[in-house]
């Protein structure tokens, strides 16, 4: 019941946001649609959420979630600057490399979140995930030396630890 009520409130809030104004018509139509959604999809929605230790310690995790969002935006801009510099070079030069990184993450949610992070980290792109060996296949746009590769892998491990705190 709690799950259905929470889904109802969230979908109704989203409905009001997209409607752009609050009136009795919007409220009635939103109530009907939100109740349909909450009746049909509440169980499936909460099955997909796999927060570590459930939702009990959610307020405590707010700081970690905030850190993840900040790291995400910072990485997006940093990597965008590097790639855009390549785009405007007279002769764009690349030294691409495909590497495999083993991960300790187990949940499908955390694996997907880290894949998104890898796609936005500096010059890396998550090509594939090997479920048998728990490895990401990553394409680097510009790696000149093994040291640089190590540094970038260390950066990914940092993200891995952040995500493991929240989701895994």
């Amino acid at each position, binding site marked *: 019941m709690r799950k259905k009520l929470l889904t109802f409130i969230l979908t109704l809030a989203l409905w009001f946001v997209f409607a752009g104004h609050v009136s009795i018509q919007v409220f009635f139509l939103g109530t009907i649609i939100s109740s349909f959604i909450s009746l049909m999809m509440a169980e499936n929605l909460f099955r997909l959420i796999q927060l570590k230790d459930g939702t009990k310690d959610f307020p405590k995790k707010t700081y970690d979630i905030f850190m993840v969002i900040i790291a995400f935006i910072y990485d997006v801009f940093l990597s965008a600057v590097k*790639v855009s510099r*390549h785009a405007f070079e007279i002769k764009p030069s690349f030294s691409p490399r495909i590497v495999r990184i083993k991960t300790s993450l187990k949940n499908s949610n955390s694996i997907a979140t880290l894949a*998104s992070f890898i796609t936005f980290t500096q010059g890396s*792109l998550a090509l*594939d995930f090997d479920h048998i060996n728990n490895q990401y296949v990553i394409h680097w746009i510009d790696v000149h030396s093994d040291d640089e590769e190590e540094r970038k892998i260390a950066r990914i491990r940092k993200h891995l630890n952040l995500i493991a705190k929240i989701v895994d």
Partner: protein
Amino acid sequence: MIDFILSIRQLFVFIFFITGIYFLLSTAVGLIRFPNLYTRLHAGSKCLMAGGISVFMGCIVLEGISFVSLKLIVIMIFLSITNPVTIHVIASFDNNYNLIPKTYTKEDFEK
């Protein structure tokens, strides 16, 4: 005082829009100039996302606190979820199945 706040707001809007335009332009240039599919996907993921965030942030600052800003925030969240997923799907299809037809680049013609 109100004029000063408005001008500061306008300044932030301009900074966000100019940054967004730069990144979106670099996405377009990168998609044309980069040599192969994977490097083009790099441009399509990172620069597009940074450009999108900048333009949306500019719009949010311009609009102030309203339902439109909330809508923009929701759209920004959707973009940040869908963009890496689509890029990963394209890369994964190319890596595993070779379903994506090869786009010929300058390097291919030189060979």
